[in-house]
C-alpha cells in the first residue's frame, strides 16, 4: 500500500509529481505556491532530476518547453499573475504538441490582486490560457489527496494528448495540511524517451523537428485535430462528483475549495429537511455538461453557483446547460476574502427557503 504522510497541499503536489515521473521543474517565486519550487529544489536532485529557478515565469515555462521536447516529464507552477506571464509559453507548448504540467495555485485578481486565496482564474484556465484558441485539460482537485492522485496521473493525459495539462487549485488547498497516501515511484527510463521527442537516448537516428510554427494548411489541419481532441475529452475524460443530486430541488455547483465549503452547507441543509445537492466539476475542461444538462428540471427549482470569486466565472458554462429551465443563482466571496461555512450555508438557505434570489 501507499505511504501515508501529513503534508501541505503544495508539498503533496510536488512529491506526487516526482513519483509521477517528473524530472524537470522550472519556476519563479510567487505566493501562494512557493512550497512547490522549494520542495522540488531539493527533492528533484535526489532522484536525478533537475530544478532550475528561472529569471521569470516566461523563462521558466520556456525551460519546461525545452525539457519536454527532450521527452522529459516537466512541470512549472505559479499563481495567477505568473500564469499570465506563462500564457505565451503554454500556447507554444500546445502549438508544438509538447506535454507538460502547469499548476496554478490561484489568488485574488485581477492584476497583482492579493496574495490570499481566490478562485479568480477559472475563465483564464478554461477559455484562454494563451493566444490562438487552444485548450488544456483543467483539473480542479479539492483535497491534498485528490491533488496527489491528479498530479500523479497528469503526464499520462499530457503524453497521450501531447498537450499541456493544467491543475487549478487555490491558495487554501495549496496551504492546508492534510493526510495523504502517496503512490509508488514510477520508473523513468531514458531509453524509452518518446519517439516524437528530440532525445537520441532512445536510439533515434533520423532528424527530429519540433516547432510551434507551421505552413498554413498544416496549421489548419492541426487546429482541426485539436478540435477533435477536445470533443473526445468530453466523451471520455469528464470527471465529476454528484452528491445528493437524485432528489435535489436545488443543486449547488462548486469546484475546488468552494465545493468543500458547499458540501458542509448541503449536509446541514439536508438535516433541516431541504432537498439540496451538489455537483462538483473535477475537470473544469472538459466541463461536466451532462451532469447539469440532464437534471430533471421538472423537479430542480434552482442552480446555485458558489465560487470564491465575484462575479462568478463558471456561470456561463452552467447557464449553457440549464438553458433557462430554472433560475441560476450565484454566491461568492472575492479578492482573497474566504468562503466560510456560515456564509455559504446562509446564502444557500436564503435561496432555498426564500424561493427566489
Amino acid at each position: 500500500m501507499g505511504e501515508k504522510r501529513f503534508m501541505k497541499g503544495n508539498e503533496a503536489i510536488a512529491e506526487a509529481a516526482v513519483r509521477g515521473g517528473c524530472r524537470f521543474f522550472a519556476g519563479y517565486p510567487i505566493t501562494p505556491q512557493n512550497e512547490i519550487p522549494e520542495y522540488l529544489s531539493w527533492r528533484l536532485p535526489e532522484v536525478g532530476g533537475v530544478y532550475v529557478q528561472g529569471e521569470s515565469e516566461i523563462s521558466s515555462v520556456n525551460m519546461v518547453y525545452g525539457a519536454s521536447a527532450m521527452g522529459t516529464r516537466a512541470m512549472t507552477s505559479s499563481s495567477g499573475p505568473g500564469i499570465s506571464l506563462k500564457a505565451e509559453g503554454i500556447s507554444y507548448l500546445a502549438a508544438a504538441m509538447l506535454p507538460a504540467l502547469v499548476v496554478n495555485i490561484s489568488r485574488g485578481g485581477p492584476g497583482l490582486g492579493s496574495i490570499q486565496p481566490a478562485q479568480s482564474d477559472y475563465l483564464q484556465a478554461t477559455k484562454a490560457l494563451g493566444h490562438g484558441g487552444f485548450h488544456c485539460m483543467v483539473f480542479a482537485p479539492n483535497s491534498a489527496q485528490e491533488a496527489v492522485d491528479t498530479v500523479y496521473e497528469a503526464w499520462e493525459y499530457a503524453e497521450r494528448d501531447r498537450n499541456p495539462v493544467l491543475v487549478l487549485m487555490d491558495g487554501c488547498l495549496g496551504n492546508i495540511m492534510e493526510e495523504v497516501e502517496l503512490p509508488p515511484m514510477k520508473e523513468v527510463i531514458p531509453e524509452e524517451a518518446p519517439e516524437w521527442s528530440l532525445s537520441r537516448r532512445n536510439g533515434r537516428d533520423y532528424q527530429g523537428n519540433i516547432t510551434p510554427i507551421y505552413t498554413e494548411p498544416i496549421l489548419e489541419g492541426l487546429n482541426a485535430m485539436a478540435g477533435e481532441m477536445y470533443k473526445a475529452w468530453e466523451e471520455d475524460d469528464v470527471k465529476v462528483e454528484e452528491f445528493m443530486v437524485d432528489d435535489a430541488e436545488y443543486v449547488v455547483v462548486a469546484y475546488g475549495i468552494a465545493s468543500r465549503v458547499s458540501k458542509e452547507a448541503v449536509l446541514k441543509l439536508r438535516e433541516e429537511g431541504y432537498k439540496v445537492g451538489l455537483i462538483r466539476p473535477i475537470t473544469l475542461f472538459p466541463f461536466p455538461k451532462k451532469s447539469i444538462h440532464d437534471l430533471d428540471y421538472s423537479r430542480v427549482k434552482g442552480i446555485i453557483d458558489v465560487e470564491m470569486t465575484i462575479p462568478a466565472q463558471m456561470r456561463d458554462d452552467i447557464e449553457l446547460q440549464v438553458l433557462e429551465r430554472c433560475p441560476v443563482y450565484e454566491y461568492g466571496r472575492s479578492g482573497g476574502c474566504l468562503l466560510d461555512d456560515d456564509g455559504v450555508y446562509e446564502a444557500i438557505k436564503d435561496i432555498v427557503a426564500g424561493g427566489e434570489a
Partner: protein
Amino acid sequence: MAEYKRASLLADSPSGYCPGCLHGLATKLIAEVIDDLGQADNSLNVISVGCSALNLLYWSGDNLSVAHGRAPAAATGIKRTNPERLVFAYQGDGDLAAIGLAEIMSAANRGENFTVIFANNQTYGMTGGQMAPTTLIGQKTTTSIYGRDPQTTGYPMKMCELISTLEAPVFVARYALNSPKGVNDARKGIKKAFELQLAGKGFTFIELLTNCPTNWKMSPMQTLEYMNTNTIPYFKPGIYKDKEADVK
C-alpha cells in the same frame, strides 16, 4: 585547401535567405564546424524567431523552434536534461538584445553549458526592417526614418561587452562576416566555443556581425562596405573573454 564540402546539416535546396544575406553564411559556418567535430547527429539547433526561423526548412539536424527571445531558456531545459548533446541557440539582435535580454543574460550568468550564436545585423529583418537595439546611431530604419536618434532611443547595445562582465561565461567573442579573414576567424571561434561546451566548461557566446541587404536597401556588395565603414568601428571584433586562456 585540400577539400571544401557542402555541410551535411544543410538541406539540398537553397536557404530561405535573401541574396547576399550573411545569415546564410553564418548558418553554413556552424554546420561546417559541426561536421569538423563529428557532431552532426549529436547537435541540436534551438531556432529563434526572426529570419533565423528560416533555418527550420534549411537545417537538416535536430531542431527545436522556440518563442521570441526564449531560446536560452529552452536551451537550458534541453541541456540540463540531456547534457551529452551539443546544444546551440542561433538568435538575431531583436530576439536576443531586446525581447530576450533577460533570458540571455540569466543563462549566461548561470553559466549554462551551451553556446549562443548571435547574428547582429542591426535590424528586424523578418518584420520589414524596424529599428533594433543594435541599430547604429544615424542608421535609417522603418521606425527611425531620419536615422536612430540616441536622445530618444539610446545607443546600440554591445552584447559581447555586456556578457563579458559576467563571471560565469567562459568564451565571449565577436567576428565580422564581411571578409575572408573575418569568416576564417569566426570559424575558429565557433569551433572553440563548441569544443569548450563538449568539454563541459560552461557558457560560450559568439557574436557574428551580419548584414541585411533587403532592409538596409543596399546591394550585397554595398552592405559589406557599410559594415567596414560603420558597423565594425562601433562593434569591434575580438575576443572579449577567454577564461580557459587565462587558466593556462
